[in-house]
């Protein structure tokens, strides 16, 4: 049937077009990171060129970039870890108990998804300045917890509620404490969901720019801030900027691919399944 194979061809071409557009900017970033400055400034842009590793050598020799990546890692790991530590017990309570004010509490947790970071950037800046916390890992970790905690609570609650109640009842008959039920039953069985929420938290923290820009000066600058800081002066070091960009984006892309099936769930906090 000719019309059928024509449909198949169009289907394939459509998919290829989508793939090309989706991947193109990332491809352009990665390929630019292997170009020399003269190739980068060529007009029209060059598609075929002799790759160079000079930009990466430049990036890894720059203590500022290396520090920034380490800072980002410290902040992301601790803010995510603490959020999981604080969020999973709360999710357990929300999944397994009925109590007054539960829906209000729920609303409050969820509404953090909507609050614009700029709303709290100013007061947090002033408070951090007064407390002498500017340019410390701690202040970024604390701020990021407010964003990551709701994600952890949402996904973990969802996961915990899918755990059959019988397991819990059996444990209760054997005299297990509530904490033991949480620790021995819910936490291990909920691990897949918790891992997904942790990855989302990590991605958020790793990507965040506004607070990192406002609350850090020199020592604790994170990777996005440093990448942005190259954007001054007359002739921009595009190769170095794109190499830094690649170094920043690569780990989160790998993480995101790991949770790609849960991407929608994480981004909407479960509004659609």
């Amino acid at each position, binding site marked *: 049937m000719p019309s059928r194979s024509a449909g198949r061809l169009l289907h394939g071409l459509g998919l290829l077009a989508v793939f090309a557009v989706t991947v193109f900017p990332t491809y352009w970033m990665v390929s630019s990171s292997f170009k020399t400055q003269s190739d980068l400034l060529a007009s029209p842009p060059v598609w075929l060129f002799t790759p160079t590793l000079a930009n990466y050598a430049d990036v890894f020799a720059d203590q500022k970039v290396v520090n920034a990546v380490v800072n980002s890692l410290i902040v992301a790991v601790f803010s995510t870890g603490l959020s999981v530590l604080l969020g999973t*017990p709360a999710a357990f309570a929300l999944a397994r108990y009925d109590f007054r004010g539960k829906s209000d509490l729920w609303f409050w947790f969820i509404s953090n998804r909507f609050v614009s970071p700029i709303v*709290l950037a100013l007061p947090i800046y002033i408070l951090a300045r007064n407390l002498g916390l500017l340019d410390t890992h701690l202040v970024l970790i604390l701020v990021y*917890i407010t964003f990551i905690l709701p994600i952890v609570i949402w996904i973990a609650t969802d996961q915990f509620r899918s755990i059959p109640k019988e397991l819990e009842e059996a444990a209760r008959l054997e005299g297990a404490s509530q904490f033991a039920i949480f620790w021995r039953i819910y936490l291990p069985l909920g691990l897949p969901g918790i891992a997904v929420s942790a990855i989302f938290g990590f991605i958020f923290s790793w990507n965040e720019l506004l607070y990192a820009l406002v609350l850090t000066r020199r020592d604790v600058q994170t990777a996005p801030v440093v*990448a942005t800081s190259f954007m001054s002066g007359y002739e921009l070091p595009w190769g170095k900027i794109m190499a830094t960009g690649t170094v920043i984006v690569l780990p989160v892309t790998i993480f995101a691919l790991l949770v790609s099936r849960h991407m929608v769930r994480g*981004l909407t906090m479960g509004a659609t399944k």
Partner: protein
Amino acid sequence: MTDVPVPKPPRAHPGYGRLTPLWFLLPAVVALFAIGIYPTLFALVTSLRQYNIARVRDGFPFVGLANYATVLTDPTFWQTLGRTGAFFCVALPFEIAFGLGIALLLHRPGLDFLRALTRVSLVIPLATTYAVVGLLGRLIFNRDFGVANSLIGLFGFPAFDWLGDVNGAFAAICIMDVWQWTPFCALIFLSGLSMVPVEIEEAAQLETGSRWALLTHVQLPYLLPGFTAMLILRSADVLKLFDVVFTMTRGGPGAATELISIYIQRVGFRVFDLGVASAQALLLLVITIVLARVYIRFFYREIE
């Protein structure tokens, strides 16, 4: 006989105190309260004072609602809010239209490998660090060596100074936003499409040869919840949008791409008028909370 204590009805969780959930919830609540609510109250107090770091000698006198009056009568505030709305109205229809198209392509049977590959690739824009998207935008839309100009050149258009032009810069940030967020819409639509029972879809396909009829009569009801989710989540995201625009244009040229977050950041951290900026931020917070109420009413009813 009245002295005999009435045996208490058995608790829902025998052997466990009523306060047990409290202990599980307390750490998270205290943390969010301390880091979230306290600064909000602080902003409230600041918004009632003249609080300009650039003029510390004046002190920080209490000025009542003067800052709010300043904000509400400030044409720039309304302009940036309007510009943010315009951005939403330009970018979102493209994201929805392309997203639906992509979802239909991905839902269609056949070509399994290519479909899987494309589906996975959708994750890449969503994970790309926003600041890096902005940096990439500056490279791609550069007047002299940007690849955008060489692509439009293929269609015979002359080179264009995207980021130096009022409309060009606005278009450029819209294009980057559409690139980054169309996959989000596509994935939501795709999960809606996959909810359509296979038998119904196949029966409908036998009944009518028209794809359009299939879409509007069979698939549409499954797509609507996701559609509303997109509308509300994206509107919240646009009010938050900062990183991409900040790195790409800093709100310029002039104020062409100064969205609300960028404007508040400028007033607070470049003009250092924290009183006015706090008032702006709190007004934005009110808008956000109203939005969140609407949203949660629509989507998170199941917990109650």
